[in-house]
């Protein structure tokens, strides 16, 4: 068993796993830092990807962006393995744990019995760490949980080999060499540029333009059925923003925390002001969520136009914010 693994509570599974994994190998890095350096903040509205009939709305980059992004930018020595047969996948995990490795696993939330029943949907890209095993139970550090948990072998096998979109195929990963201390300023500059570029990209489905497109779609929601389908549509957006491990405000607070920390680490004070501004934008996102929820519950009359207007205002705020972030980044580079 790895000596003294320390569990840490996190808001998001992937950044939480990477933060714990790197800290265990001697590189202290917060969840926010892991998230920000991997340029994981984003916005995407993908109407052609449907889950239970509702379009995909995401406030971050696709799954594995944090792991892969950090692997690249920190130059980590990592190994990734997938398996065709579940038994081979479990044997390999046992062998790795028995030789003292801390192992990251991709799992399906639906098959993890320790998860609250209401949150168990078929989401196949949930990341957890395995830090040991005792007989038929695995010792699991799930970053979104406050404490470590135990998971029976059969359940973990199911969760690792769930099928469907983003099927994990038993994916496990671990560090093969201790990470070197990075040049925070250099990596930070690059990460900021990447995020600004994505948020301001001239592509219809992502970033600020994605928000505007979603606003247009909300405006045109049909109300002929008494608004039931419109309520489900709006509820799905809010769920992606607040309930799916985002740290609140669709990852905006988490990213603001990254900006603050980067400012403290590098002494580049301009990032402080940007962090405060992003917290305000995160608060606006929370207000959007609150307004939506009140309409879903019928406390306020359902008005797609009002929600669309809020979303447009947010798009305008974020456009300005990421333009400022971009100029701050350029000024820093010089």
């Amino acid at each position, binding site marked *: 068993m790895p000596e003294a693994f320390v569990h840490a*509570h*996190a*808001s998001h599974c992937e950044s939480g796993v990477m933060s714990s994994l790197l800290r265990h190998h001697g590189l202290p890095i917060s*969840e*926010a830092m892991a998230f920000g350096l991997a340029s994981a903040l984003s916005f995407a509205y993908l109407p052609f990807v449907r889950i*239970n*009939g509702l379009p995909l709305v995401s406030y971050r980059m696709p799954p594995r962006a944090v792991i892969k992004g950090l692997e690249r930018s920190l130059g980590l020595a990592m190994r990734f393995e997938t398996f065709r047969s579940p038994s081979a996948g479990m044997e390999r995990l046992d062998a790795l744990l028995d030789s003292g490795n801390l192992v990251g696993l991709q799992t399906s939330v*639906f*098959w993890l019995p320790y998860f*609250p*029943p*209401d*949150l*168990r*949907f*078929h989401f196949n890209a949930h990341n957890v760490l395995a830090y040991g095993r005792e007989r038929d139970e695995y010792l699991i550090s799930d970053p*979104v*949980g*406050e404490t470590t948990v135990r998971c029976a072998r059969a359940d973990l096998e*199911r969760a690792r080999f*769930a*099928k*469907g*979109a983003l*099927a994990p195929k038993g994916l496990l990963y671990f560090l093969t060499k201790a990470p070197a201390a990075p040049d925070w300023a250099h990596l930070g500059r690059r990460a900021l540029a990447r995020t600004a570029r994505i948020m301001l990209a001239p592509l219809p489905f992502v970033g600020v333009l994605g928000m505007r497109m979603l606003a247009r779609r909300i405006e045109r929601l049909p109300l002929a059925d008494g608004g039931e389908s419109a*309520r*489900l549509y709006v*509820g*799905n957006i*809010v*769920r992606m923003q*607040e*309930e799916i*491990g985002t*740290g*609140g*405000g669709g990852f905006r*607070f*988490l990213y*603001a*925390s990254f900006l*603050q920390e980067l400012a403290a680490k590098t002494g580049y004070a301009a990032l402080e002001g940007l*962090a405060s501004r992003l*917290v305000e934008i*995160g*608060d606006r996102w*929370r207000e959007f*969520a*609150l307004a*939506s*929820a009140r309409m*879903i*519950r019928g406390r306020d009359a359902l008005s797609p136009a009002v929600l669309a207007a809020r979303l447009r205002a947010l798009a305008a705020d974020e456009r300005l914010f990421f333009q400022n972030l971009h100029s701050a980044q350029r000024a820093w580079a010089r």
Partner: protein
Amino acid sequence: MRERDVPQEGNRTLAGHRKAVYAIAEDGKLRLVPSRGWEVEEIVTRQAVEDLEKRAMEARARVLSGESSPLEYHMYRARMDVELLSQTTGLWRWRVRRHLKPKAFARLPPALKRRYAEALGISVEALGKAD
């Protein structure tokens, strides 16, 4: 969001767990704060869960009136749809859709029934009934 404004509303969807959010502490720094939940989250999560439960109950009524096979009920109960069940079992979508009819379901060979039961995480006996 300020640390003192972090909602602690005891969501039942969290089943006693606390989730991590980020908020501004007294010293102006953002930090991780455990939250017992916000009603907004509970509303949208319950909405999604209730929608799936409603689909399962409607399917159950169709099973009892002989319009659907129990497979449809179990599919929704496992929070799946035809697309996902097809991916999980490795069967074509049109075959899954056919097996949602009582007639085709009654003729299923035991091997296919096992495959469905396995994918849904239930026993073969349970698959044959809608309760």
